[in-house]
């Protein structure tokens, strides 16, 4: 009976609460290397909102495959890239987690009340090879915790 209960708790925990993911691709380097195991906490934003600096999992059609990015802009802010520097409300943001930069440029965008700007830490990639931008809050599954 204990084993059954333990199995049930483990199933619920790792199916709906703490989702294990394996990273694939270079977009979050050097923070996360490709092919590393991480955990997404789906309860992270049950009582709060994502904040700048959070690394989050973003769902596609469902939770089976997620995109991992860092939140750099929160609702109401203006976000732009100019010469590789990220600007929030016109002011360059200090990003210690970024080690390499290419001169990315992206026109300023104003975030709506439920919108976040997300991007990977690897700015040494070609901008055209890096998926990033404005994402709706309902797509954010949770915070990548470790």
């Amino acid at each position: 009976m204990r084993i059954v209960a333990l199995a049930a708790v483990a199933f619920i925990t790792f199916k709906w609460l703490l989702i294990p993911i394996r990273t694939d691709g270079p977009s979050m380097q050097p923070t996360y290397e490709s092919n590393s195991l991480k955990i997404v906490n789906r309860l992270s934003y049950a009582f709060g909102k994502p904040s700048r600096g959070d690394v989050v999992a973003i769902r596609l059609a469902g939770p089976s495959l997620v995109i991992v990015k860092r939140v750099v802009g929160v609702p109401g802010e203006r976000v732009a890239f100019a010469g590789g520097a990220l600007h929030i409300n016109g002011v360059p943001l200090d990003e210690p987690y970024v080690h390499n930069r290419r001169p990315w440029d992206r026109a300023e965008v104003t975030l709506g009340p439920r919108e976040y700007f997300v991007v990977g830490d690897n700015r040494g990639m070609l901008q055209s090879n890096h998926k990033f931008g404005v994402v709706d809050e309902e797509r954010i599954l949770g915070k990548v915790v470790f």
Partner: protein
Amino acid sequence: MSRRVIAGLTVIAVAVIAVRAWRSWWPDDKRQIQNRLYAFADDFNESTTDGLGTVARAARLATYFTEDVVVELGQGSPPIHGRETLIGMASRLQLRTAAFTLELLDVNVDLRPPAEAEVRLTAAFRRLGGAGSEGSIEAQEMSLRMIKGNGEWRISHVATVEPFR
């Protein structure tokens, strides 16, 4: 473990098996659509390069689409119109697509009675890594419209969905 608990667990197990068997033998429309899409992925992944095999595969893939299917891949590429054009393109790209396997994940079906359905899914293309190499995944969210005709669900419209704007 008491007899009562064992009896309870047995009843639950039997009920689960019965429901699964029921759904498997008499699938509802949602299940039919999901099965149809999984079958499409299986046929898509069937690797063949000999002439007759390629033709047979193309003919089989064609059965999953309506004659006037429209495929919009976005990113500035023009839409593909018609089943013949689509299957012709797929056949020409066979050598390239053989390097990937297609997996359909999170297939969400929204039925629009009497004979239409909107489907959201994630298409995962896994690169087949050679010995010692690392495999990789390209994922794309897609929106499909499916139509039921002659008892068979077919894809009439495909569009990519971008998570970011």
